[in-house]
């Protein structure tokens, strides 16, 4: 115990012999750590925002659809009775919202022009679907109850078709019996999101209108399930799969419905980790330099201590202790700094609007112009462990070097 105390005292004093050097090293480690925390926070936060926006525009955190629909989507596949699905969802606390939809694709025509589109038949009172486009309606209104013939189209599509609110359009497509059918709709509203993929391609009609178009009596093609958080997907997914296994349907997480988005997130993560790895190596070289130099300038002193009977093992641990203290202090400093940065970006956000006039899309989802940082505790813990280990590993070489000194030679050195 006493040796330990001496060891600690020695290490502590050694560290403060050259205050400036220690502070600079701490700054390097701390800054590296803080940068890593902020970049992980912004990366994860950005990805979560993208996933949320993709899920919102797409088919929910979890999608229930007819079996085989993902591989081969066609208008004749439907879930004829959605009641068992709704019943299965009822008592799951994580489920925040459920949207029943009929989705499909077709050709929309006006007197002037025609265009291929994707349509989504929704319940006009469903808040989640409403909140996606209702705020962006620039003329007319969002669909309301009883609008069996109403259609909401994007601004670019309206331009192309040369139609305005109240005008008639014809939707043409394959119905449930594989025949080509067409239905008349009236433009109820025009929206503008600024995302050209949406404004040009995406139309909303009511469930009734969609059923009429496809010649269906009842049923839906998609049940989109929104959860309170994207991290609960797996739990709910396995529960639902076990409950609904007997039905001719498939229950899929967003990762399988939007593989494009998943691929982007994975690739971007890989890029971020590579970058962090590089930062870590550069910081590690700085640490190595400091510790090695501080050891080399004390060669004479170490020789003296060894000659007085200090065991090489003890010397090794003194230097490792020094490194540990340095690492811990830097982690407190860097962690504080990084957390401050994270907190700033989590509340104020990183505003990219200056860089981009139009809204950009990535892997089919809108990139939010303001990024909010989100740090998961597991990530921080992992990062701290890595930084700590890297610091210790860099301290190994100088420590081994010092413990191998030959006292006689060392004493003669200046």
């Amino acid at each position: 115990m006493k040796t330990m105390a001496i060891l600690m005292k020695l290490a502590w004093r050694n560290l403060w012999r050259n205050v400036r050097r220690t502070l600079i090293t701490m700054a390097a480690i701390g800054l590296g750590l803080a940068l890593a925390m902020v970049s992980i926070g912004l990366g994860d936060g950005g990805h979560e925002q993208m996933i949320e926006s993709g899920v919102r525009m797409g088919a929910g955190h979890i999608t229930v659809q007819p079996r085989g629909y993902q591989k081969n989507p066609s208008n004749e596949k439907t879930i004829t009775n959605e009641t068992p699905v709704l019943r299965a969802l009822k008592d799951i606390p994580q489920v925040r919202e459920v949207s029943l939809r009929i989705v499909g694709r077709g050709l929309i025509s006006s007197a002037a022009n025609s265009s291929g589109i994707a349509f989504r038949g929704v319940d006009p009172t469903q808040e989640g679907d409403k909140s996606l486009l209702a705020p962006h309606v620039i003329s007319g209104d969002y669909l309301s109850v009883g609008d069996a013939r109403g259609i909401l189209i994007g601004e670019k599509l309206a331009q192309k078709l040369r139609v305005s609110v109240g005008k008639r359009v014809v939707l043409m497509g394959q119905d449930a019996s594989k025949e080509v059918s067409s239905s008349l709709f009236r433009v109820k509203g025009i929206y503008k999101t600024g995302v050209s993929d949406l404004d040009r391609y995406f139309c909303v009609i009511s469930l009734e209108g969609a059923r009429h178009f496809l010649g269906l009596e009842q049923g839906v093609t998609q049940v989109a399930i929104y959860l309170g958080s994207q991290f609960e997907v797996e739990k709910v997914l396995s529960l639902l799969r076990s409950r609904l296994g007997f039905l001719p349907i498939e229950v899929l997480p967003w990762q399988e419905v939007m593989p494009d988005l998943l691929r982007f997130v994975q690739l971007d993560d890989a890029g971020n980790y590579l970058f962090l790895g590089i930062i870590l190596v550069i910081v590690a070289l700085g640490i190595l330099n400091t510790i090695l130099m501080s050891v080399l300038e004390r060669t004479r002193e170490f020789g003296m201590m060894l000659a007085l009977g200090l065991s090489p093992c003890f010397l090794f641990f003194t230097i490792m202790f020094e490194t540990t203290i340095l690492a811990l202090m830097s982690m407190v400093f860097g962690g504080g700094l990084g957390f401050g940065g994270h907190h700033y970006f989590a509340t104020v956000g990183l505003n990219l609007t200056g860089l981009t006039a139009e809204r950009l899309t990535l892997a089919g989802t809108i990139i939010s112009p303001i990024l909010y940082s989100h740090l998961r505790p597991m990530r921080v813990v992992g990062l701290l462990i890595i930084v700590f280990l890297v610091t210790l590993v860099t301290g190994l070489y100088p420590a081994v070097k010092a413990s191998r000194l030959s006292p006689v030679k060392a004493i003669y050195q200046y």
Partner: protein
Amino acid sequence: MIVIKLAWRNLWRNMRRTLITISAMSLGLSIMILTFSLVEGMNNQMVHYATKLSAGHIQIHKQGYFESKDIYDYITDSGTDVIRAIKRPGLSASPRLFGNSLASSGESSTGVFLWGIDPQQERRVTELSSHLLKGHFLTSCHGKEVVLGKMLAESLKVDIGDELIILTQAADGSLGNDIFCVCGVLQSIGDEIDRGAVIMGIDELRELLILPDKIHEICISLAHPEMVDVVKANLERILKGRNLEVLTWKEIFPQMKEILELNKVWTYIMLLIVFGLASLGVLNTMLMALFERIRELGLIMALGLRPLSVVCMILLETLLLGLISTIFGGAVGISGSLYLGAHGWNLSGISEGFSMSGVTVSTIIYAHLTMEGILISIICMILVSLLAAFYPAIKACRLEPVIALSTVA
């Protein structure tokens, strides 16, 4: 002169320290050169996909067609007149006709975008014909064959040799339909083509839409794409009064410019971070080098070396560090970039491609080394390290010889 010699010798007094600092700086430099090349390569690939694989460098439409996409906004007489007027070396042009239709494969149906092209002329303008996933490209303006976008083929569940029914509203208001045979599927290019393009011979589409001798677009590619704005101005002058609109690819993909700039901005942020951290290493090294030499500096100053020369000496030491790092880091960075330029960096193990504002980002990135990337990286590294050495240098020149001489190192 003596200052240079002093600086050089000082550098090698502690070889290990110098080498470690150099390796940190070289690593930073080589990473930055590589990053610049990879980002440039990625940007080039995206521009390539947007131009040589879809829009060409310049497009000519009837005034208003680009906004409205109205099939009645056509250019008459197959555009021969216009094509003859703009003909010049280094410029190839190809006519295109567009339409919308419902495509049905029996399994499934969807709204699609029809492209009518002349395969012979298209080959001179774009590289569509060699960007096939499977099958073969169209061979003539006639023939009941079509090439499909990748996602479209998947969602319609069709493969080479399968039939596709095209149902469309013709120019006279009648419904036209015909059966085509899928002869090829394109590799991923961008959302719009992948999801909805059906490419067929231009004469077939004219028949289907009842638009004889009409075209909607003249797609132009340039041998020197960097001249695009000059050529556009030229063409506009030539075509004045014909009620035509000349657009460059930058106007056709307005988001492209922002994406390219965004990518650059991230590179510069990374540049700052990497060199900022590397410079902390330089600061530490130079400070240590200063403190172990206080007595010695005091002595040479007492012997008459002026403070300014001391500053020069320390900055020179840093500059030498920077130059040596430039050689090592530059060599690694440049050869790495050249290697990744020739063989590409294959990321398909991690992830397949994704799209950025509608343009596909390929998973094989070919680095493109630019003088700009090399110079910016080197200059930044040297400037940042000199900046870091300023503090030690100022500290050194303020030394009082008498006090310094009595300091015990």
